[in-house]
């Protein structure tokens, strides 16, 4: 608890709560990262589930770079947002749920890349059952992470 208070009182924490533009700016960047990460993940997932069957799966692989870029943008912007408000966010139940869902979603994303995008890059037609399942699970997990993230604003008040 002392550590959380120290975080929010640190220069980074002070900067976010003291500056007019840091907080809105970080929120925007965090939203942009979400759009890129979850949006491209949705495009890849929908393809794997069979919704755009003529898109060659293997050639979607470069999209993962952009998804990871979105992830890291949000890991950094999210960490800074956390630091500024650490004592409250750390005990916000939605925040804990959000972190768990993101951890699972990232794990699924890595598994998906391994299963659906074999190094040979040749298999295009058939998507395996396992890859489809992972794709469906990843859509649900990211949807859940968005939900938990949005609800943080509401469950914080309960404390």
């Amino acid at each position, binding site marked *: 608890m002392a550590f959380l208070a120290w975080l929010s009182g640190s220069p980074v924490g002070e900067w976010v709560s003291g500056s007019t533009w840091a*907080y*809105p700016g970080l*929120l*925007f960047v965090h*939203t*942009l990262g*979400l*759009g*890129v990460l*979850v*949006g*491209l*993940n*949705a*495009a890849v997932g*929908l*393809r794997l589930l069979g*919704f*755009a*069957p*003529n*898109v*060659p799966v293997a*050639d*979607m692989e*470069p*999209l993962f770079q*952009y998804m990871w870029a979105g992830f890291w943008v949000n890991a950094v912007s999210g960490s800074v947002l956390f630091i500024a408000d650490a004592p409250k966010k750390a005990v916000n139940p939605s925040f804990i749920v959000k972190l768990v869902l993101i951890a699972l979603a990232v794990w699924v994303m890595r598994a998906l890349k391994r299963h659906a995008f074999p190094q040979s890059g040749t298999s295009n037609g058939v998507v395996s059952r396992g890859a489809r399942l992972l794709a469906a699970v990843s859509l649900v997990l*990211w*949807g859940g992470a*968005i*939900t938990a*993230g*949005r*609800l943080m*604003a*509401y469950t914080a008040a309960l404390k």
Partner: protein
Amino acid sequence: MITSFAVWLEATAVSRAVTHYSWIWPACETLHFMGLALLIGNVGVLDLRLLGAVKRLPVAPLNRLIRWGILGFAINLLTGLVFFVGAPTQYVNNIAFAFKLLFMALAAVNLLVFYLFGVARAVEALGPGDDAPLSAKIIAATSLFLWIGVMFWGRMLPFIGNAF
């Protein structure tokens, strides 16, 4: 005049229902963010492809993904309307909201240019590795800029404007 309309709207039963049930606003916000991701992700794949980032993807099959972007837009139009009906007075004199609408209108114009001036048809034929014409690249970059801008102004509603 727009202010008096907003005041009138805010007094209606449907507007009061939106703010009366405390779950409606967070539920619509959540859907609004999911819609945002669907829109930016599925439209973004085509934009990135035209700009040359995922160049091996043939363009025509990506049309099927655009439908999901349109679904995202529809979700956001609907949930956005709920916000507007629920609390119209916080939007009508909000500069960020005005810019958000402006950027959406520009995105629509950009889309019209894409479809009405033959660019959409020209890129349809692009196979794996083909370079998109400059006109298509400009439209794709404009699309990304405008949708990211829509997101920016939406996020600024409570900060530059006065929305909650």
